[in-house]
């Protein structure tokens, strides 16, 4: 940690414009009049406008969030500041170590800085007989009881997740569903995909155990303000594309290190048209480009999603029109095609149709990236349109208990009232498994759908480095739920337009 910080070498602040789309049709957009204050039950102290006439420098929304959280009027990229943390999330893989460091450094009797701001979500290694994995959940439980942690989503009976009403599942999806993601706030988590929450217009990033141990005791962390890369996505999204295609497109463009130490801000008409779950997919994978955080400006879609989920006041912020961006990338989304990331890197982009000769052994639909309700609805849409059955084993792992219930209750549009689970069954998929991270990161050997042999898998997850889903020589093609479902139907990597048009 240090650093936050820390970028070993700080890139000079260039302002470049890159036009990556086929055309530069899109015009510069201005943020529209979105209400500045929403549901403020408690008025935060308002700063009086400066009367000295000093000119305030424009800031990006990431800079503004960090400025407010560090009680500074102004911040620039590269500044290292102590930031007040709104929410700290940890899970069963990194929680026990973070707790160990918290106790070592602050003492056995120490109390966390705020029992209502620590959110603990067991999700990684749950449905396993691995004793150490089970013990780690016990460590979380003991700590939560000792500290009276308000938000602990416990699981005790592993034989049937449904009898554990508190249990949620994959932390990043649960954080959103339980109302812990709020515009303008700072959320840290001991998981690299904590950046998912940037979809709510907040600063969210992943940290290690030592940093988390520090935050547990102090509620603060030294962070370095990142410069922002801006991605302007304009144009109508074709109905065979999903957000996953957009982020794979972007990572393919800028590479797995293209946003290292940087914020990625997503704007444009396409982004405005995306649902919250689709915005989460976009922000989820910024870490695959090396990004520190991803962020989407909050708007009416955000506020609507939050209704009934949180009673906490929050205050969205937006990038100033004159804010400085390190680079700006423009995409005309209407011209894009379904893509995959080939083994063994998320930036190894190819068009799905270019890979039509790649024979596959299995399909995996799940994770914080591709295991949300809308991801399963998308897969069901393809199965429904084809009327066929899958040619390879197709594993379905809902991210959370809520997603699992949706699969058994929400009717799929155009199906005459069938649920996802019915459509999956008719298509010959495996029965949806218990919600958790599952085989997204391999995990203990007995994990459901883990790649214990060197298979070829099309997956809606986010990483395809060697060994990610279990076997070192396994091959993972990252794809959207549309492409994953289409590939399941043919046994080859398949462009979903074969079934959707």
């Amino acid at each position, binding site marked *: 940690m240090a650093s936050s*910080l*820390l970028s070993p070498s700080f890139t000079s602040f260039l302002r470049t414009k890159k036009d990556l789309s086929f055309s530069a049709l899109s015009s510069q957009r201005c943020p529209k009049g979105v209400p500045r204050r929403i549901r403020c039950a408690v008025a935060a102290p308002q700063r009086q406008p400066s009367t000295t006439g000093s000119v305030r420098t424009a800031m990006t929304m990431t800079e503004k969030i960090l400025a407010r959280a560090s009680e500074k009027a102004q911040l620039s990229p590269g500044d290292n500041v102590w930031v007040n943390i709104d929410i700290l999330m940890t899970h069963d893989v990194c929680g026990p170590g973070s707790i160990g460091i918290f106790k070592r450094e602050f003492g056995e009797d120490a109390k966390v800085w705020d029992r209502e701001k620590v959110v603990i979500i067991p999700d990684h290694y749950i449905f396993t007989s691995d004793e150490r994995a089970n013990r780690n959940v016990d460590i979380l439980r003991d700590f939560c009881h000792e500290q009276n942690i308000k938000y602990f989503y416990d699981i005790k009976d592993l034989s049937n997740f449904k009898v554990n009403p508190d249990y949620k599942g994959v932390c990043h999806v649960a954080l959103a569903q339980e109302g812990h993601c709020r515009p303008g706030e700072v959320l840290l988590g001991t998981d690299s995909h904590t950046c998912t929450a940037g979809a709510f217009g907040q600063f969210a990033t992943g940290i290690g*155990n*030592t940093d988390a141990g520090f935050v547990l005791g102090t509620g603060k962390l*030294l962070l370095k303000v990142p410069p922002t890369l801006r991605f302007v996505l304009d144009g109508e999204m074709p109905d065979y594309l999903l957000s996953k295609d957009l982020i794979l497109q972007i990572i393919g463009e800028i590479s*797995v290190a293209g946003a290292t130490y940087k914020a990625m801000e997503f704007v444009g008409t396409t982004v405005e048209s995306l649902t919250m779950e689709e915005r989460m997919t976009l922000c989820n994978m910024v870490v695959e480009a090396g990004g520190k955080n991803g962020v989407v400006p909050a708007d009416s879609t955000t506020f609507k999603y939050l209704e009934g989920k949180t009673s906490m006041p929050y205050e969205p912020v937006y990038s100033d029109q004159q804010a400085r961006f390190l680079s700006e990338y423009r995409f005309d989304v209407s011209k894009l095609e379904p893509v995959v990331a080939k083994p063994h890197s998320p930036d190894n982009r190819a068009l799905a149709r270019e890979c039509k000769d790649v024979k596959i052994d299995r399909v995996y639909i799940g994770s914080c990236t591709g295991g949300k309700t809308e991801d399963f609805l998308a897969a069901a849409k393809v199965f429904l349109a084809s009327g066929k059955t899958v040619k390879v084993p197709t594993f379905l792992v809902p991210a959370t208990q809520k997603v699992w219930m949706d699969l058994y209750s929400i009717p799929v549009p155009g199906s005459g009232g069938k649920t996802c689970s019915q459509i999956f069954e008719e298509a010959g998929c495996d029965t949806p498994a218990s919600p958790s991270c599952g085989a997204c990161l391999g*995990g203990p050997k007995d994990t459901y759908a883990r790649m214990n042999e060197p298979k070829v898998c099309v997956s809606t997850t986010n990483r395809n480095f*060697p060994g990610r889903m279990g076997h070192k*020589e396994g091959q993972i093609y990252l794809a959207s739920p549309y492409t994953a479902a289409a590939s399941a139907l043919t046994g080859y990597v398949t462009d979903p337009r074969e079934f959707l048009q």
Partner: protein
Amino acid sequence: MALFSGTATVVPRNLALTSSAKLCVVRSSSPRFLSYLGKAGFGNRVALSLSTVRAESSACLSGSGSGSGSGSFHGLCYVVGDNIDTDQIIPAEYLTLVPSKPDEYEKLGSYAMVGLPASYANRFIQPGHTKTNYSILIAGANFGCGSSREHAPVALGASGVSAVVAHSYARIFFRNSVATGEVYPLESQLRLCEECTTGDVVTIELGLNRFINHTTGKEYLLKPIGDAGPVIEAGGIFAYARKTGMIPSR
């Protein structure tokens, strides 16, 4: 810097030179550093017997002065390529090990780099061993990408690695290295992964930002540690926060 570029100066080094023989002054406020030094030892000799290099490798970080401190690391290097992600450094099946528990810390170390594909014929840890013979890891671009698991720098440190020299790092790995003090994360100007071969005998001189490959007889310049310097020098985020008054010292 040109002086230190790959093709440049080939300085025959007196290998018995005691470049790291200075006495270390360690801040007592920095428990992480102590363990860091304890692990690498206070050897003051640059030993050349390959079988004993590890045991006698030296890592001496002085607490005096500003900047990134002085001191050196010496030992055999292990070379990997670009985009080595955290699953290759420590595969997910071992993440049930909790790094803050001493016995599990040691175990984590014994699995370090076990996720490297079979194409790495020289294994990082020899079969049947729990520690590595290589105290310095040399990598290409974006080392440590992927997950935020602190198990990654911890596994390297626990296996016996003192320093990593990469062309560039993924953000969270770099931060976790500094936070924990498990490994000293350095960046090279050139792609040292193409200049060095696994098993080469190397020395890092922190004060001079210098990297010496004794096997090839070449020297290279490392990048200064940058913003992380004060935190590294303090000995990690806790020590830094105590030093600057952010949290009470104890």
